[in-house]
């Protein structure tokens, strides 16, 4: 399984070689390279924002901000700290989650958390449309986790919940959730064959 996972990982859109290379060119101010980079990263950036925010207009706004930020900060990307794709996705995740949390603070927070509680994280796995082999792999690897590991990870990543919120939603102790997030991600990392 691990070997298959590695083989699948090679097909990830913009495995580090091409995206890293493109980003380095973009850092020199090459707008045409940015256009190529856009074609690789726009769908993941928009899709992640939409998964977290749900609202298409807001998701588009966040995606636009992130994509422009990629252009602006391209030269600050440090390959020693991870792949270009990971750099982009981390930025997209932060932006979308910032937006969710700002809204939560504006609205009645408790009410919102309670309402979102109805929407169980298991849906998230079903929502991963397995049109691409690597997405199928993510789905399969997620199904290898314990329920608590999987729910903790999905509620945090796709919903933008803090681990304290997650503990609350799952009625689990804080240290337990912290630990399940870490060991769940480690198991996911190994299943996906992520090496760096």
């Amino acid at each position, binding site marked *: 399984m691990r070997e298959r996972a590695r083989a699948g990982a090679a097909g990830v859109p913009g495995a580090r070689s091409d995206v890293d290379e493109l980003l380095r060119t973009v850092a020199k101010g090459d707008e045409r390279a940015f256009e190529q980079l856009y074609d690789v990263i726009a769908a993941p950036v*928009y899709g992640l924002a939409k998964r977290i925010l749900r609202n298409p207009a807001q998701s588009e706004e966040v995606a636009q901000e992130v994509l422009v930020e990629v252009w602006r900060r391209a*030269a600050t990307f440090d390959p020693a700290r991870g792949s270009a794709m990971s750099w982009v996705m981390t930025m997209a995740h932060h932006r979308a989650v910032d937006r969710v949390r700002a809204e939560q603070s504006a609205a009645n927070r408790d009410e919102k958390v309670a309402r979102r509680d109805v929407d169980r994280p298991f849906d998230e796995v079903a929502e991963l449309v397995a049109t691409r082999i690597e997405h199928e792999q*993510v789905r399969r690897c997620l199904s290898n986790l314990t329920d608590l590991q999987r729910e903790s990870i999905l509620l945090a990543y796709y919903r933008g919940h803090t681990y304290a919120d997650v503990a609350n939603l799952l009625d689990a102790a804080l240290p337990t959730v912290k630990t399940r997030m870490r060991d769940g*991600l480690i198991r996911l990392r190994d299943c996906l064959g992520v090496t760096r």
Partner: protein
Amino acid sequence: MTNADVHALTGAYALGALSEFETVAVERHIAECTQCADEVRELLETTSRLGLAAAVEPPPGLKSRVLADIGEVRQQPPGRPRTVRGSSPWALRLSVAAAVVGIAGAAVFGTLWLRTPTEDPASALLRAADASVIQGHGKGGTGSVLVSKDRNQVMVLASDMAAPPPGHVYQAWFMSPNGARSAGFLPDGPATKVVLATGIGDATQVGISVEPIGGSEEPTTDAVMVFDLPT
């Protein structure tokens, strides 16, 4: 937070599930711990795969808007800390604070710290090794205090407070069993209010009360908000 505590947070960190204050603690830790930095890097690659799996084709208009935008955005040179264009640090801090206060003081202060490009008394306090965040209680609004006994300083941050009655102001206090000392005034206006004060001394609490303009020698009304300082 001990190193073991911080290390246990790498998963939550990679999932973006920490308060910003804890995020700062983890980032500070991984800057000094190669093994932790490696783990965090791998876990971030892993969470990115979750992000990639959510990919959805964006609306067609997005590309032309983004390409038009970048024509007008100057690129940042390598190695500069991130800043936000066109905002003075204080204006930025206040707007960021206004946007996120109420989530948790930790989030507010952490965000401030992350977005503060230069060293000033507030960011120095945020960086203090013993800095901790206390949530306020009371009927007057929501607030947090960041406190460092090492630096002998507190930063009070309050929001959602009603305007004080005409002719009055909000005054902050260091309160101890032996009495109260003024810690300064909360600025006017609807925005989130920030006060940085030095001289914790024997104070066990920080409080906020309504006082006549010009302030009082000691509180003349009940505190609208109280923060219990760590012992």
